């Protein structure tokens, strides 16, 4: 080992609900804990800027956001070390974590690790999605949480999922004008979701909350299009309008800002870089790392918690974080196996209660096939290296079997985002062309550094 490597019982990557909860739990049993996050302040994306947001902003963002205040306070007083502004670029199986901080590279080692890197918005590969003026709805929500920034001109929200409706409501509360809400959820989705009878019953509250939200959005005079499909953003150098099909007709709404959203997916860059096994989840249409019940990868002492282990939402993420913290306390013999067995069931029950609505939500807000697997060959799939859907289909035609091999044909997935924005699309295009499951097609081999690092930064290695 290099000298100057700080050693902790537990090193947590990610300061959202899962990471913070894991840290608090481990501290309860006396373990030494360090939490690293790319953001300077704790909260993750869901509770972004929770410690500094104004009362007005909290009111607009609602009680689900404000719930983060207590978590942040509990963390601040738990005695864990918080390293903000740390960009983790490598996690090794010996549980050494390399990260960039203030232009230098540092190392920290844990006897155990918790990876809690959360979720990211699902890529939305449609014509024109690379144009300036097109962003994620989640991205726009981050702009509001972190900077109080709101759209200047009437904005268009398009896609599906709870976050899209939530942002619409928050914008209306903040006095922002919404030009149109174009959502893809239609009658068929409601019928399919209703087949999850139990989930539908339990989800009734959320469903009626959703329809009340929609009602409110309409009552503000917002043009709403349900069951829309075949999105295309138009414009030469920037977004000027969005075209879509609604009730069998092609329609168009002018807008300088189009906010797209079709759910969130696990941010699996860390678990892939560790060569962990992943399985394709047909319900959530994404990769999920294979772990034991407490989130541990194999017998590594490396645990995953929260949305990076499969989308579960903020509450279940916090519970998973606590579960990982508890399991680590047992593994490091800070608590007895008996004590673990006494405390585990209550947390598992919490997770079950917070996630039972998932199958229903995943079905109701399932993103449309054509919004994940472009039918138009001209759609840019790899935004960094500008590889189009048609090119990937051609690669398959000449024998390309999986995402790694696309790199032999072109530069797909080789830009700075390292496949974060194209990986799922590439897997699904190849699977669709080969008529096999995404599981068989696989994913990119993710290699460190998982964040760009300059030679200068590397030279400062302690």
């Amino acid at each position, binding site marked *: 080992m290099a000298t100057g490597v700080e050693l902790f019982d537990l090193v947590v990557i990610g300061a959202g609900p899962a990471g913070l909860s894991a840290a608090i739990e481990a501290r309860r049993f006396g373990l030494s804990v360090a939490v690293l996050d790319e953001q300077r302040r704790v909260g993750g994306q869901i509770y972004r800027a929770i410690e500094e947001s104004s009362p007005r902003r909290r009111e607009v963002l609602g009680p689900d956001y404000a719930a983060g205040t207590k978590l942040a306070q509990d963390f601040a007083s738990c005695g864990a070390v918080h390293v903000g502004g740390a960009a983790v670029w490598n996690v090794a199986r010996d549980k050494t974590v390399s990260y960039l901080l203030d232009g230098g590279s540092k190392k920290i080692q844990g006897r155990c690790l918790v990876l809690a890197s959360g979720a990211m918005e699902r890529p939305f590969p449609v014509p024109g999605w690379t144009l300036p003026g097109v962003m994620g709805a989640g991205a726009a929500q981050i702009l509001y949480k972190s900077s109080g920034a709101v759209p200047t*001109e009437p904005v268009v929200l398009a896609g599906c999922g709870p976050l899209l409706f939530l942002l619409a409501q928050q914008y209306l509360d903040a006095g922002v004008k919404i030009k149109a809400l174009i959502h893809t959820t239609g009658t068929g989705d409601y019928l399919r979701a209703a087949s999850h009878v139990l989930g539908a019953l339990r989800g009734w509250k959320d469903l009626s909350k959703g329809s009340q939200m929609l009602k409110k959005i309409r009552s503000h005079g917002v043009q709403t299009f349900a069951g829309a499909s075949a999105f295309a953003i138009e414009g030469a150098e920037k977004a000027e309008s969005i075209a879509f099909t609604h009730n069998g007709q092609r329609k168009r709404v002018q807008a300088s800002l189009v906010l797209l959203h079709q759910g969130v997916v696990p941010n699996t860059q860390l678990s892939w870089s560790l060569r962990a096994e992943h399985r394709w989840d047909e319900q959530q249409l994404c990769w999920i790392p294979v772990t034991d019940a407490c989130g541990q990868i194999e017998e590594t002492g490396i645990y995953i918690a929260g949305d990076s282990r499969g989308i579960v939402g903020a509450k279940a993420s916090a519970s998973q974080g606590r579960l990982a913290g508890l399991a680590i306390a047992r593994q490091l013999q800070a608590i007895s196996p008996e004590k673990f067995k006494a405390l585990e069931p209550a947390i598992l029950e919490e997770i079950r209660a917070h996630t039972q609505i998932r199958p229903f939500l995943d079905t109701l807000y399932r993103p449309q096939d054509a919004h994940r697997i472009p039918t138009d060959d001209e759609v840019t799939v790899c935004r960094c290296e500008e590889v189009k859907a048609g090119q990937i289909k051609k690669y398959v035609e000449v024998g390309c079997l999986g995402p790694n091999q696309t790199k032999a044909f072109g530069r797909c997935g080789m830009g700075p985002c390292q496949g974060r924005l194209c990986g799922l699309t590439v897997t699904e295009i190849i699977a669709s062309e080969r008529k096999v499951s995404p599981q068989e097609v696989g994913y990119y081999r993710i290699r460190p550094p998982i964040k760009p690092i300059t030679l200068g930064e590397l030279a400062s290695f302690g």
Partner: protein
Amino acid sequence: MHTETQETKISLFMSEAGSQGKKVRIYFDGQPLDVPDDVSVASALLMSGVRTFRSTPVSGSARAPYCMMGVCFECLVEIDGRPSRQSCLTQVRDGMLIQRQEGASGLNMQSAEN
């Protein structure tokens, strides 16, 4: 060349009504911008009328922030002489010099395992 003077007429984003706080002065392609002191470079530029942050190395097409959380790398700009900084992860600082990034990122994404 981009027609920045036209672009700056309307920002995509603005500070919500009633917000007040300290400002700092940053420079984008030499143009001074007074922005809130506690926001990211990406937020500051989006609130100051900047529509295009960079052009792509392959086709030269215009790009701007997409994810605002550090995963998409669309918001890359040059900051104080250092290329390819993720502006959504960088806090503004008084006197900061920011340049639109044209073409190649200069990022070395080669494997560290070699």
